[in-house]
């Protein structure tokens, strides 16, 4: 419980620091959004009026406080590019990015854990070399190059999907999942490689423990030793990595949404960056960062719940 409170305290502090750093990062550089919106032809009076309307004539600390209180209440400000509330922009795109991330995560876990076990099981055989080689390759391929390859091979040559088309979940659920499959796969492959590598190392480390010798000594088969004894302990070692993988999956989706032109948070963020839409970028950055910090927080808590050694406060 004490641990939980301490972690929550750190979580709140981290989120506060994230918002503070982001806000001031966007206000260090003297720039004039009002001038940016109206262009160079607008008169000084017009610009001044818009400044008051946008609230950028007030001191920085005031602006920060009103921004952060708005943020907490779900009022994320107004995008200068789209001229509409950021909250509305977010609402339509959040489900897309979350589904994409979830699909990628499921793929990573479905492929990564069995392959990690396989690599540990077939140690010192040709299989280990093959899996090592594939993980090395998987870690080395940039996810956006992978997506271009998928578009070329599966989209344009084999016609399994139509690149550049996106089916909304409101229209057809199966079409939605279909149009997210290859993007999710491109995000998942590099992360799977990372997971397999860690999983294998964790399994091999556990295999050297005393309890494995005991289990073998009482006649347990290799399958039982690996799946019942070793796997449970290896999973504990891998859970912190899951938090990291979720963060990477979300970062990955920022690029991949751009490649496949999927209307999610990532694509919105990139278009906000390229059009220098400060309010939108600022909010999206804080939003995504908070999601990722929360995920890591949950991963930390999950380890507590899973592993009695840590839960009961051993050494």
């Amino acid at each position: 419980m004490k641990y939980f409170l301490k972690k929550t305290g750190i979580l709140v502090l981290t989120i506060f620091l994230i918002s503070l750093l982001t806000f001031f990062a966007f206000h260090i550089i003297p720039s004039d959004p009002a001038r940016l919106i109206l262009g160079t032809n607008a008169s000084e009076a017009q610009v001044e009026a818009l400044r008051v309307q946008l609230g950028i004539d007030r001191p920085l600390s005031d602006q920060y406080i009103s921004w952060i209180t708005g943020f907490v209440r779900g009022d994320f400000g107004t995008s200068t590019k789209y001229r509409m509330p950021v909250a509305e922009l977010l609402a339509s795109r959040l489900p897309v990015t979350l589904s994409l991330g979830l699909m990628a995560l499921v793929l990573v876990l479905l492929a990564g854990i069995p392959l990690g076990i396989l690599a540990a099981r077939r140690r010192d055989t040709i299989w280990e070399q093959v899996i090592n080689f594939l993980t090395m390759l998987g870690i080395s391929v940039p996810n956006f190059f992978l997506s271009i390859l998928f578009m070329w091979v599966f989209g344009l040559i084999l016609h399994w999907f139509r690149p550049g088309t996106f089916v909304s979940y409101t229209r057809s659920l199966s079409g939605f999942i279909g149009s997210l499959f290859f993007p999710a796969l491109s995000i998942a492959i590099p992360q799977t490689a990372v997971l397999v590598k860690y999983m294998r190392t964790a399994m091999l480390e556990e295999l050297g423990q005393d309890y494995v010798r005991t289990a073998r000594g009482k006649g347990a088969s290799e399958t039982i030793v690996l799946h019942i004894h070793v796997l449970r302990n290896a999973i504990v070692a891998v859970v912190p990595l899951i938090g990291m993988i979720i963060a990477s999956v979300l970062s990955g989706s920022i690029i991949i949404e751009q490649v496949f032109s999927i209307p999610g948070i990532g694509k919105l963020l990139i278009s906000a960056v390229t059009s220098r839409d400060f309010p939108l970028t600022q909010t999206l950055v804080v939003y995504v960062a908070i999601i990722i910090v929360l995920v890591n927080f949950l991963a930390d808590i999950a380890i507590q719940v899973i592993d009695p050694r840590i839960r009961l406060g051993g050494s």
Partner: protein
Amino acid sequence: MKNGKFEFRVGFVLTGIILALAILSVFYTPYDINLMDKASRQISPCLSHLFGTDNYGRDVFSRAIVGTRFTMLVALSTVGSCTVIASVLGLLSGYAGGVVDEIIMRLIDAINSFPDILIALIIVTILDYGKYTIILALCVTFVPSFTRIIRTATIQYKNEVFVRSLRVMGVSDLRILLVHIFPNTWPRLLSTIVIGLSNAILAEAAMSYLGLGIQPPTPSWGRMLQEAQPIVYNAPWVALCPGLMIVVTIVGLNCIGEGLRKRYLT
């Protein structure tokens, strides 16, 4: 295998090839990289154009090897400046301890709580695009992990017998840090640097792909991939050449990193 010799060899051969091409491109490229020629658009790979030509008739191979140079430049200056900053922070934080350590580590934690790409995007939004911005952006994202590694090593050596006896002999703190502790952090730092290089190359390629990194007409691998995407059906080689060069470079660097890790850290 066991002592990482095999990984070293593979790694050095692969990165060697890429580096050699990058150096070659300073003196010689088969074609002018910006020469546009309508007559030779989208030529498939042949002897005169090793990797064919792109949509504007520019030689893909020439552009890719020149792109290597810029990518390497960004990666090396990122990791170089990051190593310097992180060494100062890490040594200071680990050796001084107390309040200094606390301040530096909280700052590092705060930066670390952002995913790398978000920090890069913030910096790119508020500054102008270009290679100096991208170097700064990547440097900021890499400093936390580098600092942590040097700090951990410093703390470990701070209480070793040889450091304590040096202190008894009256050696100054600065000399202990720079001459006696810092060199001991190198084995760990070295593999971090190599992995950092491969991460920097991947990140630079991603930013350039998004159009936020190196600006045209300077070729870079990420940018070339972005330009190749719309014509991938008719001219896949335009995408394959820079893509494969990224993969070869990263595999090479990762092999060296893995070899270093096996050799020094186990």
